């Protein structure tokens, strides 16, 4: 298990996790955004590796991928972003999120080494489930990188066992059936599902997809160990493309507000 992830979850308060696509709208601004986020006490950062065909993402994150690719971002640049973040902050867990083709194309072994060198702690690969992840799992484990497993509203008891086998780091509960940035989670259902999962695992459970604002964060961090906010931040990027200073200020304000919503 990644040392940084373990350390982070040893602290009692609930975790706030953000998602932004690396290189959106460009590499420099993307790094500034991450700095702003980290300065506001965000606990874990997820950095999206842009992909041309992000089939699990709604329009907001699709467009952020398009912007990032259009500005010339390569997968190696994402690793370079991690490198740069590490120079400023050596504690915060960094999770790369993306699609398997980016990794397969680079070569699984080579990708895992580069991740380790850059200081990546975990990977969330949206289209790679336990049936297919043994190769990446092996390479990642050797380097103490956690392959974060996803649990969803369609996961039944049988499937949960498959997912929990070999799971490490934390678990990512996808709160809605659907794509990113669309529907909001039903808090009561969500609570029940997370309670059910808790009875089968010691791993922390972080909830993501459809968590949009401080209110969602307040409600969901009562029973989840952490919450992920993605599309709402990416929307701020999208709405301020021709004023990068304002983009940063708005993200600063927004993430400060989110942080206030986190339950101790």
């Amino acid at each position: 298990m990644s040392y940084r992830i373990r350390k982070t979850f040893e602290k009692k308060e609930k975790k706030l996790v953000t998602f932004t696509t690396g290189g959106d709208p460009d590499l420099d601004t993307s790094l500034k955004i991450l700095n702003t986020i980290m300065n506001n006490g965000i606990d874990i950062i997820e950095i999206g590796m842009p992909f041309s065909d992000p089939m699990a993402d709604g329009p907001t994150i699709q467009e952020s991928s398009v912007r990032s690719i259009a500005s010339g971002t390569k997968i190696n640049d994402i690793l370079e972003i991690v490198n740069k973040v590490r120079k400023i902050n050596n504690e915060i867990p960094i999770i790369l999120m993306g699609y398997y083709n980016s990794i397969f194309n680079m070569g699984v072994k080579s990708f895992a080494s580069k991740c380790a060198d850059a200081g990546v702690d975990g990977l969330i690969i949206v289209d790679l489930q336990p049936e297919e992840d043994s190769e990446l799992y092996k390479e990642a484990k050797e380097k103490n990188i956690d392959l974060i497993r996803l649990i969803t509203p369609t996961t039944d008891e049988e499937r949960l066992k498959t997912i929990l086998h070999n799971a490490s780091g934390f678990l990512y509960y996808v709160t809605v059936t659907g794509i990113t940035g669309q529907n909001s989670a039903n808090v009561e259902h969500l609570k029940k599902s997370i309670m059910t999962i808790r009875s089968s695992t010691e791993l922390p459970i972080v909830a993501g997809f459809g968590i949009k604002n401080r209110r969602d964060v307040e409600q969901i961090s009562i029973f989840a160990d952490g919450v992920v906010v993605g599309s709402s931040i990416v929307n701020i990027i999208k709405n301020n493309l021709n004023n990068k200073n304002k983009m940063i200020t708005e993200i600063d304000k927004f993430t400060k507000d989110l942080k206030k919503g986190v339950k101790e």
Partner: protein
Amino acid sequence: MTIKNSFKKLPDEKGYFGSFGGRYVSETLMPLILEVEKEYEKIKNDKIFKEELNNYMETYIGRPSPLFFAERITKDLGGPKIYFKRDELNHTGAHKINNCMGQILLAKKMGKKRIIAETGAGQHGVATATVCALFGLPCIVYMGEKDIKRQSPNVFRMKLLGAEIRSVNTGSKSLKDAMNEALRDWVTNVIDTFYIIGTAAGPHPYPAMVRDFQSIIGEEVREQILKAEKKLPDLLMACIGGGSNALGLFHEFLDDKQIEMIAVEAAGHGIESGNHAASLSGGKPGILHGNKTYLLQSNDGQIDEAHSISAGLDYPGIGPEHSYLFEQKRVRYMSATDKEAIEAFQYCCNLEGIIPALEPSHALAVLKKIAKNYSKDKIVVMNMCGRGDKDIFTIAEELNIKL
């Protein structure tokens, strides 16, 4: 007779054809896809299901489709005897409905209430809309904006059949993006929705299932050619988008080692131009739309846009079984350009009185070129997998004719 290294036994239990195939989808879809597999395994050899399917194949689709000796083309090319397997005569005008009929019966068995599909040329969309009308299920078809424009007759047909068309304007605005959008719909409506995939691609069990439903083409050909010629063909030919009509023809014969097979990808403006849809000739292995297969992609693993005049072939991937047959060299993969396909299209109209779809026109274009390499005693069967009514506007535009 059992053959030791049979090509017909694949995929393995994890859905792999050699190193291709598998299941690369969102976790949300996994339980459902496993259920599709389980249910498909149950019905696939079930006598009652088969009888039901065969009955529709016969009375609704019009199977068996004829095997036609294309005498004038044969004479003109001066090479082998050329037969067309006339799947363009099927109800709705292409092979696509063979698969849709199978899948909708499965969807019904599974109690699904809503059907979604992606379409490129619109043939799969029309076939899906047709079976949905037949069984009274709501149908939503995702179609790229670019394809909606170039296949307008099919768009209107789908509407007449009661389907809702959702225009997709992301990425290349064609088949690849329609499939992304269909997958996004599926993951959102996972409980009540069945996704009828139109080609032998996608997560396991789709590549195998679509192939199985299309295999009736080859099974009929075996019987028909034995009756007509008292022997098996020497060469089988088909065009390739995702690869379902080609596998439909080939699969039955994969273990008849003496039979040569050629599949034709779309070379668009030419492979060297970079504007093409020939995933095997111009791509490399990767992961997209639920399977590991050959894909057109950049050095960084971003999927490239494909190009073909034929909307049905305009896809940067190919079904995983073809990637396997390619690496095993069981099937030879060649390509034809837009221009060659248009020429073959006109050639077929003029010599045989058959207006072919642009897709099989690609196969015919290659056949025209290679016929001279085969002697007169050889027999070729080409899959005439679709008719060209949908393409007349594209052809008119290419020929600078105002309709």
